[in-house]
């Protein structure tokens, strides 16, 4: 006969059942971790359970009575590690367990057996229950939320971050840097992590309270009490705030802590809050969070393959090069200084040098390496410009798949409705902006100074912009795992399924969510990669009414409309402007692009010129096509009747060659023969910083690009060599030639086939391209040049018969000068 004297334990606190709490039972120096179920009954871990997973504490716990024990309880998702309960052994309260008075019976529901059935039964496990009451305590955490992420963020880079360790101003004025010149000095002040916020409340009687962050074994994570502190500490005292309410039962605390070694700190952690002073005995609670590094980066897939079908390298700090630009331009010649003399130049140089700025930046190219046709109807392969094939990444650094699964499992077994998902909503914004060398010159035309913002998802053949950004859903399956493919990718993770952006080419890779097999460095210092959950998205750089934009729109019409790529260069930054994790916004919802959660350091998008032969091929294809497309525009037929399209094409080729300093280039990249940031860009007593490496060619006062459109062209034409050529064709034929035709026609009716008229029209159009007129009269036999001086036409048409030796006005324009 079995005569069990074992009893179950039911725990109350303040007379009420202690529901869903960890109970620590100490006897003889050993601490047993038990779990109070929904009725306060203690359960022990089942035979195949896992320590700390409360849902595996399902075995009925019994203890021989009478006996003496010591007990403590905590309410966190995970039990206090042994090291914590050992350190705070005074927290335990002694209790005598006895069966007197006899315990009240429990209740069991049973079924009668059918008459005659000899085997059916109801099975009952019976044991007595002893009730024990424990003191209540309050330690709660408001921020971060338990069973969520505790994200560590980077500080936003200040202006000084980019120039750190690099002398500014005069030292670089006129310097000649190669494309890949890197800073020789290391950063003195690297980017730092922001502090992590902890907010909560504790029993009002407590006069001191402390915080630790521990790992699963209870070992403390090194902290710092301030951003500036260099001393690692194991715990931080919490500033307790007494409520003004007379009957307040708690004091609140709000503190920021810094991680001493973030890469060693990331992982599943418990925030431990404890207090001793002012209380009858210590109280301690712990809260399970996953400490994760949150950052974003921008990968250029075209860096790996021009087709963009493989991931490009993650840009690191060691990839930064020195980018020289300027903060103010132009300067005005000081009063009293004669123009164009040594004194002028010396004074202006002194004025402009301080405006020179050198920054460490990652550079992404507008490429022209890949050849493709201009449109579906064409078969000619051309080196057309393409934006970087950007794949943006949000990193949850220090988050392994197994740890994410554990977090989700805890949530599943803790929260109502057994949530199975990590819902992550990310809002982002990619800004591209640039102010040209005429940025401070408003005297003739608006300077070039633009800022465009891009966001959205390419899905189902169009750009969409969900209010909440892209929503990612990672689901725990019925085996409590996250299904991934061989690359660690979660299938069907996006609420709005992205497609690969179809431009500039098909076959680009599709954004994905990876929870396994990925690792990234925290920050950009190559400090060793950690397991990382990666959420990707592409940023469509395309014309769209939904994009925010500011700045002068310029002239020349859009190069492209609709669902195609557009070119934008200059300075960029990618911002994660909003983030929701597990339904909790990490920001307060009011933070716009100016207050991002995560941001890339500012980067530079620069233009790559096609080779000379590629430029020639591009020109030869684009110009005839453009002129044919616009042959029916008003006035064009009259112009083409006098001078054929082929001649205009050659004239334009010469203009572009001349305007680009004889190089047929849209972006400034000839460092061997010219200073970097300073060039003689003087115009009307103003000196501008002239050429900024790999930025659109500039000519004062407002000319830009291979075509030197002034007033400046719009951004579509500004950043594309294709746009530059088309803009030149538009400027020469659709604008200046028509104007020249009208100008000359007021003096003589132009006759098709008349070489003098054709030559005059060409020369006048060329002169007008540069601004102004050359021909003023028809003397009845010849066109005469009334104005002497400008050599622009001769320079453009140099080597052709059209060269004119200017004499005393009027200079007769003779057949020897005729071109064509």
């Amino acid at each position, binding site marked *: 006969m079995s005569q*069990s004297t074992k009893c179950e334990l039911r725990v109350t606190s303040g007379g009420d059942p202690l529901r869903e709490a960890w109970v620590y039972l100490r006897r003889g120096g050993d601490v047993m971790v038990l779990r109070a179920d929904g009725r306060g009954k203690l359960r022990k871990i089942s035979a195949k*359970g896992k320590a700390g997973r409360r849902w595996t504490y399902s075995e009925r716990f019994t203890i021989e009575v009478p006996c003496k024990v010591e007990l403590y309880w905590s309410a966190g998702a995970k039990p206090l590690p042994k090291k914590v309960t050992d350190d705070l052994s005074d927290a335990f309260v002694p209790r005598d367990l006895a069966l007197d008075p006899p315990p009240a019976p429990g209740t*069991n529901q049973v079924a009668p057996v059918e008459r005659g059935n000899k085997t059916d*039964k109801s099975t*009952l496990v019976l*044991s007595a229950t002893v009730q024990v009451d424990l003191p209540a305590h309050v330690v709660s955490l408001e921020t971060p939320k338990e069973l969520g992420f505790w994200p560590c963020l980077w500080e936003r880079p200040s202006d000084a971050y980019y120039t750190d360790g690099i002398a500014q101003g005069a030292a670089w004025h006129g310097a000649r840097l190669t494309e890949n010149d890197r800073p020789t000095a290391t950063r003195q002040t690297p980017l730092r992590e922001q502090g992590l916020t902890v907010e909560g409340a504790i029993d009002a009687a407590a006069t001191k309270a402390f915080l630790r962050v521990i790992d699963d074994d209870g070992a403390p994570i090194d902290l710092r009490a301030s951003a500036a502190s260099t001393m690692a500490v194991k715990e931080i005292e919490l500033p307790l705030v007494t409520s003004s309410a007379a009957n307040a039962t708690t004091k609140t605390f709000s503190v920021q802590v810094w991680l001493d070694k973030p890469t060693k700190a990331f992982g599943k952690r418990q925030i431990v809050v404890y207090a001793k002073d002012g209380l009858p005995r210590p109280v301690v609670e712990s809260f399970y969070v996953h400490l994760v590094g949150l950052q974003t980066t921008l990968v250029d897939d075209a860096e790996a393959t021009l087709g963009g079908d493989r991931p490009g390298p993650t840009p690191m700090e060691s990839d930064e090069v020195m980018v020289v630009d300027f903060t103010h331009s132009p300067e005005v010649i000081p009063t009293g200084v004669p123009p164009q003399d040594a004194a002028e130049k010396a004074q202006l140089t002194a004025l402009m040098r301080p405006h020179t700025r050198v920054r460490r930046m990652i550079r992404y190219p507008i490429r022209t390496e890949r050849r493709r046709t201009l449109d579906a109807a064409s078969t000619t392969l051309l080196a057309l410009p393409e934006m970087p094939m950007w794949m943006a990444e949000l990193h949850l650094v220090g988050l392994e798949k197994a740890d994410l699964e554990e977090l989700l499992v805890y949530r599943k077994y803790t929260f109502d409705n057994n949530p199975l998902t990590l819902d992550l909503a990310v809002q982002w914004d990619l800004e591209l902006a640039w102010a040209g060398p005429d940025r401070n010159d408003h005297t003739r035309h608006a300077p070039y100074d633009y800022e465009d913002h891009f966001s959205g998802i390419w899905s189902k053949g169009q750009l969409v912009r969900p209010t909440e950004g892209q929503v990612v859903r990672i689901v725990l399956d*019925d085996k409590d795992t996250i299904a991934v493919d061989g690359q660690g990718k979660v299938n069907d993770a996006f609420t709005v399924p992205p497609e690969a952006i179809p431009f500039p080419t098909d076959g680009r890779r599709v954004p994905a969510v990876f929870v396994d097999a990925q690792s990234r460095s925290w920050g950009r210092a190559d400090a060793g990669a950690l397991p990382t959950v990666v959420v990707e998205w592409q940023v469509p750089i395309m014309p769209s009414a939904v994009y925010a934009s500011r700045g002068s729109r310029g002239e020349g019409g859009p190069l492209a409309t609709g669902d195609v790529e557009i070119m934008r260069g200059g300075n960029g930054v990618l911002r994660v402007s909003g983030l929701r994790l597990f339904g909790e916004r990490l920001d307060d919802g009011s933070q716009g692009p100016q207050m991002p959660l995560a941001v890339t350091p500012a980067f530079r998008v620069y233009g790559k010129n096609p080779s000379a032969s590629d430029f020639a091929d591009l020109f030869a294809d684009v110009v005839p096509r453009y002129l044919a497309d616009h042959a029916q525009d008003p006035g064009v037929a009259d112009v083409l009747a006098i001078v054929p399209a082929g001649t205009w094409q050659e004239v334009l080729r010469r203009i572009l060659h001349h305007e680009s300093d004889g190089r047929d280039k849209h972006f400034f990249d000839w460092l061997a023969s010219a200073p970097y940031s300073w060039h003689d860009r003087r115009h009307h007593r103003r000196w501008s910083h002239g050429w900024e490496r790999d930025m659109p060619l500039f000519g004062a006062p407002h000319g830009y690009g291979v075509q030197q459109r002034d007033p400046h062209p719009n951004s579509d034409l500004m950043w594309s060599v294709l746009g530059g050529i088309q803009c030149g064709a538009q400027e020469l034929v659709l604008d200046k030639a028509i104007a020249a035709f009208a100008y000359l026609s007021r003096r003589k009716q132009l006759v098709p086939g008349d070489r003098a008229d054709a030559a005059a029209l060409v020369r006048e159009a060329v002169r007008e391209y540069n601004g102004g007129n050359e021909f003023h009269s028809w003397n009845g036999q010849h066109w005469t040049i009334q104005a002497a001086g400008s050599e622009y036409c001769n320079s453009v048409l140099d080597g052709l018969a059209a060269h004119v030796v200017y004499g005393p006005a009027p200079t007769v324009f003779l057949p020897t000068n005729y071109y064509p």
Partner: protein
Amino acid sequence: MPVHVVESGECMTAIAARYGIHDPGAVYRHPQNAALREARGNMNVLLPGDEVFVPDPQPKKVERGSDATHKFVARVAVKELRLLLLDADRQPITDADYTLVIGADERTGKTSGDGMLYEPRIAARATEAVLRFPGLRLSTCLEIGALDPVDADTGMRSRLENLGYSPDDDGLAAFARDRGLDAGDEDGQRAALRDAHGA
């Protein structure tokens, strides 16, 4: 010929008795209860809301002469209770003296050598009893006939409770782990729970 809608705590024995039928099997086996039999499989494990077709009772007519004494034996519907009793270590509580109190009826007995308690005659309408083991200081209130089918959450929880697991999903998961069952196969887990518990 009413259709009886099962309420909480009712089993077929009690329902039959309510309608004056001593043989609950006759009700259960009635052709019009075929769907119920298919769904439940055990006439004393019904779910509130189940519909039971109750046939008219068939009164037995006996003619006897007057001015004489006759002995009539009426069959009274009863419940049979068979419990396997285990201690906290899930070992059978063997040869243990018990008291079973059903209303005013107090019975005593001793569990068998394999921990079984068998009470063959409990009033059909009885729904509650108190079982005590004075020597072991154990007691429990029995709700007889209140066990729901295992495929109902209430039935699952009751069985987990009876078997010493926490009466919730955690308990079911623990039961599955202890038995080496597939974590995702809840139907299989419930079937195993039914087999382990009985009824």
